[in-house]
């Protein structure tokens, strides 16, 4: 039994639930059996990967669905061994090169080279190129991106690249201009609702429209999240009721409590407790960027309108620091301390004003 997200993932371009026009275009694109390098971008949970897999299936047939996990080790010129996981079928290879951290450039160069240099054996029945799917291209270092640009030109005859990322802003211009950019937007709330309803129908469940809408809204139109939420609701209670509460993930609840702890008291001791909670979140694999984002959202909803600008500014400042800096905790803690100071001052001023 797999997750609903995987179970009901469409595999044909024709069967996609939304962005049908785009699906049609993609179908036409691969009709002639060839396509340029693609840069697929869009927010998380919009269906980028689904579309890419559909495209590959259109191209190569059901053989692309036979996936295997490969564990590759690449030796960098500096004799450093880099280990990386990849997922591959006979026709394509999927790699998240940013897993390799700073040595992603080597991964890009070596991996694509090995793929590109091996010719397809039966080119009569197959396509004459393989596809390399690179995920999280926006997290590659600049070095790696430049290496990628060179590789793209060099091995055009034997391989096609599909790049997948959330935003093109961190992808360098030369790569953007060498690819056909395909933006996959988030589905609208109605589309999410219809997907949820159809999935539930296939599961033999009855999903009230109101609940579907609430799930869609709560998930932020992230379809993957919506389906996971829906499945969690199913575990929590069935038959569904329209007003049942949608379970949050533990870390979201935890983050909310942390925000409450910050708002309820502002003292060094409390900051110490908050720090322990931040550490706890970090050890549970919640990235610091997500923590600060979630924290700001919670805190902003808790504080007065006058403060919002100041708090948001501090948050932006420390988020920036977080990206540049080394040790996240300094910046997270500095933000919390800053908020505490601002909030406390505001409350005290308010009290004084009341006294007068």
């Amino acid at each position: 039994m797999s997750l609903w997200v995987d179970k009901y993932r469409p595999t044909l371009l024709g069967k996609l639930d939304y962005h049908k026009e785009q699906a049609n275009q993609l179908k036409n694109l691969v009709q002639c059996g060839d396509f340029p390098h693609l840069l697929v971008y869009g927010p998380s949970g919009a269906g980028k990967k689904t579309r890419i897999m559909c495209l590959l299936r259109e191209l190569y047939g059901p053989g692309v669905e036979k996936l295997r996990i490969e564990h590759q080790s690449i030796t960098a010129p500096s004799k450093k061994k880099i280990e990386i996981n990849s997922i591959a079928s006979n026709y394509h290879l999927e790699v998240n090169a940013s897993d390799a951290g700073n040595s992603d450039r080597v991964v890009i160069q070596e991996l694509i080279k090995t793929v590109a240099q091996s010719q397809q054996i039966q080119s009569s029945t197959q396509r004459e190129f393989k596809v390399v799917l690179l995920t999280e291209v926006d997290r590659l270092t600049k070095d790696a991106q430049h290496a990628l640009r060179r590789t793209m030109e060099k091995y055009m005859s034997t391989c096609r690249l599909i790049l997948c990322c959330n935003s093109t802003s961190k992808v360098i211009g030369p790569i953007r201009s060498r690819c056909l950019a395909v933006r996959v937007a988030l589905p609208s709330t109605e589309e999410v609702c219809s997907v949820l309803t159809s999935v539930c129908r296939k599961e033999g469940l009855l999903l009230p429209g109101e609940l579907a809408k609430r799930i869609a809204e709560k998930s932020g139109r992230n379809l993957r999240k919506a389906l996971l939420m829906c499945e969690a609701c199913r575990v929590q209670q069935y038959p569904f009721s329209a007003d049942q509460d949608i379970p949050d993930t533990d870390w979201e609840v935890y983050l909310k409590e942390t925000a409450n702890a910050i708002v309820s008291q502002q003292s060094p001791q409390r900051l110490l407790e908050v720090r322990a909670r931040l550490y706890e979140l970090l050890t549970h694999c919640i990235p610091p960027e997500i923590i600060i984002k979630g924290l700001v959202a919670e805190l902003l909803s808790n504080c007065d309108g006058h403060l919002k600008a100041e708090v948001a500014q501090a948050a932006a400042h420390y988020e920036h620091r977080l990206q540049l800096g080394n040790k996240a905790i300094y910046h997270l803690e500095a933000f919390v301390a800053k908020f505490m100071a601002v909030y406390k001052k505001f409350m005290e001023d308010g009290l004084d004003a009341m006294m007068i």
Partner: protein
Amino acid sequence: MSKLSAGRKASCSKLSSWVEPSFGDLFSGPGLNSFRPKKGVSSGETESKSRKQVADKGGQRPSKRRAVPDPQGPLDSELSQGEQDEPWVDRHAPCSQADLAVHKKKIEEVENWLKAHLDIKPETKGGATLLLTGPSGCGKTATVRVLAQELGCRVQEWSNPLTTSEFKTEESFRDTFNPDSRFNGFLGVSQTAEFQEFLLRANKYGRLQMLGEGVTSGRKVVLVEDLPNQFYRQPACLHDILRRFVKMGRCPLIFIVSDCLSGSSSSRHLFPRDLQEELGVWNISFNPVAPTSMMKVLTRIVTQEAARSGGRVAVPDKAALDLLCTGSSGDIRSAINSLQFSCLTDCSLEASAWPGKKGKVLASLSRGVSRARSKSKSSKSSELQDCSQAIGGKDASLFLFRALGKILYCKRERCTSPEVPSLPAHLSEHQRDRLLVDPELVVEKSHMSGELFNLYLQQNYLEFFSDVEDVARASEYLSDSDFLTAEWSSRSTMQEYGSSVATRGMIHSNSARAHADSQASGGFRPLHKPHWLLVSKKYRENCQAAQCLFTSYCLTPLSLQTELLPYLAQLTNPMRNQAQIAFIQDVGCLPLRKYPGRLKLEALTDKDPGMLDEDSEEEGAGPVVPTPSDTTGSTPPTEDSAQPCSQGPGVTCQPASHSPPPPRLCWRTRKWS
């Protein structure tokens, strides 16, 4: 002493005579005389004393004999020459408890231990072990020797054998280098084996009764100061030998290990705490010699020497002694050595000739001077402080605990002098009294990288603050300093600035401690080790493990960690293997509605060196993919038996134990529909 070592000593003497001619001319010049007994100068009283003991027991050492003059001999010129050669550390080695510069309590402690363990009744089996630690030159060995003398027991000391001890004759030594007879040479026994042998023999056999000696008591202590190098690499070796000794031993065993700040070869490494508890090792830790008692010793030596030499010794004045005292940072051996050097008539250095470098003096932190300054605010003492020492200056060092304390407690001095301009009214909140510490110096002396020091500060600063606004400011400075060192290419340069920003920022922003008189509040607060290193390591390991375990979901790390894992924890979706289940139990769930107890506060004690696994913090370290050897295809039985459901969320997570799926072998067909 064992037969073996006696033979060794004999060959040593042979060797030294073989070596001597080439250095003969060195020894003739009177100006260089003080350097002649090299051994004695370099390693001080302990070594040469032991040599003396060895010399009268084992072979004769001609070179040594010359350096030990007959104290009762006539004071003719030649002998006084020879006398001048003798290092003062040897000549003025303490011979009674009163002479020792060590604190009375410490002496008493060691004495009590010795008294308690010297006379071991035959029925009580087992040897007692004492571990003396402390910085070098604080009188550890001297204390043991003096006490042993007073208690009438012998000190039997281990010294590392030389490799050349195997060569019985000069010929055999030469033969080793002769390719024809290469099989003759180097029939060595490992140092470890020899050490064990030594302990055994020292334990079992008494001393031979030499003719003409009085009846000696059977009491003796075994002293080990010079541990075989092997033990530094493999402390377990030492531990095994010790365990055996503790069972079999009959006489007390004393280890003397100097503290060192690098930490790797320190007593903690050799004698970890659990071993100390297991074997009942009694640990006495010495402090650096206090300036007052050092001053007393130095003055005594100077007066004695002045009387003896009759004006041939340039007697330094009190200020110079003071400087020596502070410059040596509690190392009495180096203080005496430099005293002797500075007293040499030929090259005596006038105090005025000492370079008045305006560098920040090591002394400024030394307690002695700060006390002196607070006592007498004379300009003289501060002047003295400013000129650095030409000879015998020793790099002072601070243990992390004290270094942190200096920053966090940030002692200030009330400024009474009116010439210091005060800030204008609108800036008055930034008015601070003068600091008694120099933050950069403190960081430098803590022998840590600025980044690591900042981590320690960050862990501990909150307890010292009372106002949130101050905290906000301090944390901002910490954030700044992290930002400064973000770029790896410039990190080595920026590190100092970073730590400067952090320490000074923290000191300044603590407005509760802005003034000297507002500092009475406080009292002792325990310090702790930083969590961050652990947390970030765990974060990376967990992310890594998540990647490995859930590759088949084909998700980016972000959505894997924030969406899939937490929801998987809530779903009743059967997992493929035990490792995944355990991982989700551990990482996917958070202990809600209670404050986390996962991170234990680890108190930082007095002499702890800094953490050294800093390299784990290195950026750009390649992803640590777990070894493919431990596969989950065959899940270990231990994990099978462990009920994953019974694992509370509070169980400490051990991501390393989650073995990744079998990487290469698993061909998994996965349907998308």
